[in-house]
């Protein structure tokens, strides 16, 4: 199994040595951008860490956009017959809230962490295809902006994020909102797909010597599973979106009942993508807290192979449960039974993870830092979301719950209480690594508790609302259906709305914390290893230099860094520290690698990504513009393909024949 073993260097060497090829300067339209420290460097960078930060900042921006949309929804519902938004605005608001949070916040924020930390965790210098990585980020940014530009061009999409046919056809939604939606998601889909291929290749081929698959940090494992899910899920939604675009723009009839279509086709396509999507959103956060809990419990992750394999199991079974979103769609009892059983089955590997996190804490030495608090809150809140999930795996019960607020409560416990809390755990845990300063623990605790209280005040009552029979996606709720007594719809809607503002303030405190941490003179530079961490990414500078490691470590253990710091007495099993982090790093870097070279910057990724929205606007407004966009895409692709992955004027040492690549092996020729 060569794939499990450390990758052979031959592959990289063959392509990585453009020795015979002397790239002509004349081929480039532009002079190749050189290293710089100004803002320009962020535009042309191919550094996975810079791109990770850019993913993070952009995703957080969209988190705020989606959050404002959510607050408007809750304002509308704070009292019966709300007047804050009209029906059209409300429908756009909940459609864009979900779309923004799923595609423009949770997924890219997970991509931010994956980009930044997977190469560091596996001891690589960058990802396999650095320029493709940059291209992915720019597709995400421009796709997201394109999608949101619909707000200023006649209104956002209004069909719900699930965009069921035939309500999505031009007859029922004549504005351009849905066109922006399909095309915008198509562009961000390219980001996800290229990112998935890039990270899969990176993880499979670029691990440090000795890092077998089963020695990989668990976050990297979960990211790997997520990328495989993306690799297979994104093409499905791509096809569905193309069908919808053709239906809306070119009078195709894929979902037109009068032409003999069955609108359930869309539902199947959407959920075959949409259910794996749920795991795409949650698994990276599972990975993050599977790093955080062991560090702050001073114990290895309990049942590491089981956690890794249950992640993979979720990845597989996740493909066989999509129709549980369709229990009321009229599939017939046999299909419903099968999908009901499959959904219960997936609860097992998910439950296993919860057991393993609790068992990791059990018998440990727990310190309740902010990242740990967020991680523990994830375990508890995800458990609530998982258990309510079991109640609607029971299909007959689901026919009472689906499309009510009970479901809204369920998936917000999973996605906010789970995925988002995991991401915040990651912010606090890795902040000193990325920015040299530790976020204030004091402000962080306020941040945590307000988010915890706000989240439970907002989404907890929705369980009750749903069981009392309040359907979702309703621009108003009415007294006539609210019930008697104090604890009716009115009470719980008010609690949820108030809770949402507490949650909003909690999130805002994170930004305050970031500003405080970086502006206040009182916050000291973080030590090299502030948390006494266990994995490779902490075995280099804060933040890491462009080439990540002065010396690529050779890995002998799971939790390599911990094993270099601590020794276990074989007879008493007691553990004692033998080296400080600084000593470990000094020893590692005593013989720094020579001839490190890094991939070169490029203009092409951003230019190619910029051409895509041009096609989008062209499709909506002017077919000639579409042709211009297509021409730009072709030209930039041509320019890119002519550009060698490494600039000839940069330091590059081709490996001597027979030497086996030396230190250039981490770099991909294909970039």
């Amino acid at each position, binding site marked *: 199994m060569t794939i499990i073993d450390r990758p052979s260097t031959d592959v990289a060497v063959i392509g990585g040595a453009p020795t015979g090829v002397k790239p002509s300067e004349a081929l480039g339209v532009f002079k190749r951008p050189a290293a710089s420290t100004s803002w320009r460097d962020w535009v042309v960078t191919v550094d996975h860490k810079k791109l990770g930060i850019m993913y993070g900042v952009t995703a957080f921006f969209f988190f705020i956009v989606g959050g404002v949309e959510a607050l408007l929804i809750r304002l509308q519902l704070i009292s019966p017959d709300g007047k804050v938004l009209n029906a059209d605005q409300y429908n756009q608001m909940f459609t864009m809230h979900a779309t923004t949070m799923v595609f423009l916040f949770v997924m890219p924020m997970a991509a931010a962490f994956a980009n930044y930390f997977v190469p560091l965790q596996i001891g690589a210098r960058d990802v396999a295809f650095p320029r493709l990585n940059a291209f992915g980020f720019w597709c995400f940014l421009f796709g997201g902006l394109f999608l949101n530009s619909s707000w200023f061009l006649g209104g956002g999409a209004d069909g719900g994020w699930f965009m069921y046919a035939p309500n999505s056809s031009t007859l029922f939604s004549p504005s351009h909102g849905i066109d922006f939606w399909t095309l915008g998601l198509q562009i961000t889909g390219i980001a996800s797909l290229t990112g998935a291929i890039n990270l899969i290749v990176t993880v499979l081929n670029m691990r440090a010597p000795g890092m077998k698959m089963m020695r990989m940090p668990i976050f990297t494992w979960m990211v790997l599973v997520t990328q495989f899910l993306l690799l297979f899920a994104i093409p499905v939604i791509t096809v569905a979106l193309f069908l919808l675009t053709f239906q809306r723009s070119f009078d195709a009839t894929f979902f037109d009942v009068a032409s003999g279509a069955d609108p359930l086709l869309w539902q199947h396509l959407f959920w075959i993508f949409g259910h794996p999507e749920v795991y795409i959103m949650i698994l990276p956060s599972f990975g993050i807290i599977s790093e955080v809990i062991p560090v702050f419990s001073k114990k290895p992750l309990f049942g590491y192979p089981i956690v890794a394999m249950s992640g993979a199991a979720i990845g597989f079974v996740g493909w066989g449960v999509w129709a549980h979103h369709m229990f009321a769609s*009229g599939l017939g009892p046999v299909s419903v039974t099968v999908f*009901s059983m499959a959904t219960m089955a997936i609860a097992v590997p998910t439950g296993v993870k919860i057991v393993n996190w609790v068992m990791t*804490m059990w018998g440990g030495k*727990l310190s309740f830092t902010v990242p740990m608090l967020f991680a523990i809150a994830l375990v508890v809140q995800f458990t609530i979301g998982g258990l309510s999930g079991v109640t609607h795996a*029971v299909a007959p019960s689901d026919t009472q719950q689906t499309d009510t607020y009970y479901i809204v409560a369920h998936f917000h416990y999973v996605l906010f209480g789970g995925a988002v809390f995991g991401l915040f755990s990651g912010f606090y845990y890795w902040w000193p690594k990325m920015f040299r300063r530790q976020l204030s623990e004091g402000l962080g605790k306020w941040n945590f508790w307000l988010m915890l209280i706000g989240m439970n005040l907002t989404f907890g009552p929705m369980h009750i609302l749903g069981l009392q029979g309040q359907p979702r996606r309703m621009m108003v709720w009415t007294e006539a*259906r609210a019930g*008697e007594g104090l604890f009716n719809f009115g009470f719980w809607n008010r609690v949820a709305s108030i809770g949402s503002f507490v949650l909003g303030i909690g999130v805002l405190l994170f930004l305050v914390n970031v500003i405080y941490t970086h502006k206040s003179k009182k916050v000291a530079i973080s030590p090299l290893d502030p948390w006494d961490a266990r994995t490779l990414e902490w075995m280099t500078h804060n933040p890491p230099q462009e080439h990540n490691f002065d010396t690529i470590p050779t890995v002998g253990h799971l939790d390599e860094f911990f094993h270099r710091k601590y020794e276990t007495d074989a007879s008493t099993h*007691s553990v004692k520290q033998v080296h400080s982090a600084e000593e470990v790093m000094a020893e590692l870097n005593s013989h720094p690698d020579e001839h490190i070279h890094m991939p070169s910057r490029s203009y092409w990724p951003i230019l190619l990504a910029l051409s895509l929205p041009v096609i989008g606007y062209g499709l909506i407004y002017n077919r000639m513009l579409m042709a211009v966009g297509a021409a730009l895409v072709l030209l930039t692709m041509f320019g890119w393909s002519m550009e060698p992955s490494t600039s000839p004027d940069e330091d590059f040492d081709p490996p001597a024949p027979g030497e086996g690549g030396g230190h250039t092996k981490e770099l991909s020729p294909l970039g």
Partner: protein
Amino acid sequence: MKKMIDQVGESMKTAGRWRNASKAAIAVSALTFVASCGRDAPQDTWQPAGPNAERIDNLQRPVFYVAGIVGVIVFAAVAWSMYRYRDRGQAIPEQTHGKPAVEIVLTVIPVLILLGVAIPTASTIFKLAETSDTEMTINVTGQQWWWEYDYPAVGSNIEQYGITAPIVTAGQLVIPENTKVLLRVTSRDVIHSYWIPKLNGKKDSVPGRVHLLRMEGSKPGIYAGQCTEFCGLSHAYMRMEAVVLARADYDKWVANQLEEYTVPEVGTDAAAGEALFIQQCSRCHQVNGLKNSDGSLNIAAPEQNLVSGAAPNLTNLMTRNTFAGASWDLLTPECRDNVWNASSADFGERYLAGVSTECLNQRDLREWLRNAPAKKPMYADPTKLTSTGGLYRGMPALGLTEDQINIIVAYLLERK
């Protein structure tokens, strides 16, 4: 070994405290839960009033309880480890990577629990899908944003229930008590979902498909529901009600629906209203038996005027309690309460009384006639009417004067 004994001893000491705390926690959560169930929410999913909803309820209650217990165990384990293993300066723990026995046991337990849930789930799914013993059939059609009910004159509908001609109504489904009614659910435009929580779970109404949904009510009364599949602009205003009548009352209801059209007395407001109705309303709204001034039968043509191709049949409007997608009451609040809060024995009589002049909710009905889209959003952008080829999405503002509204109301009041 000694370490373990110490641990057990330590936990014994704290156990008493924990027992009291957990008792308090259980009491508080039970109280919160009981208190949180608002009384008489009309769409409460935990108050079944028919055998199908009861089947679902019998299945889901134990699942909720087991899920609750599992949850409490997990939270207790988290809370315990947070308390017991917090950093108190103890030595760095042994670096154990897991205990296979523990992991296997903790995997097998959920598997067994889920098996226990799966078996009754499967059998309930098939029980709920049973249609072979159907006693009555009703066609239910959704469109933006109301439900049409068509009681076809076929088979047992004729033989058992005297439905000798099709009855077409809207807003309120009327079914006999303890009868296995089969709804054949479909749609004329987008996907909707039919849901009367106290009688059964929901079923989507999908254009081009007919889905079967069993409805049975075991107690006379009125049961609320709402469309639960997002269906466009006025999704929030697409409601419905199911009315369960005792058998004798049901026969009266059917007889009333099948009565001949009563022509308004000449010279009354209602007669003037009839003429105006023919001129303004009957393009879309059917009133069975209505004749044009030349004596020919008046046939509505909603398919030429509306996107969905259908508008509510108003033949016996005032036998229903609601209008405009069951979003507004035809009854004043007092009269409405009188019907909704009636005992099972009184319900039939009160419901069959229909809407009298004194009980008519004049305000909402007049507002609707004055400007329907202002009351219920139907056009996101009226200028986009061209995108439908000139068809309307719902009732347009007709520009009626107050006098015209008066006579239309007078005419409608006689439709029962």
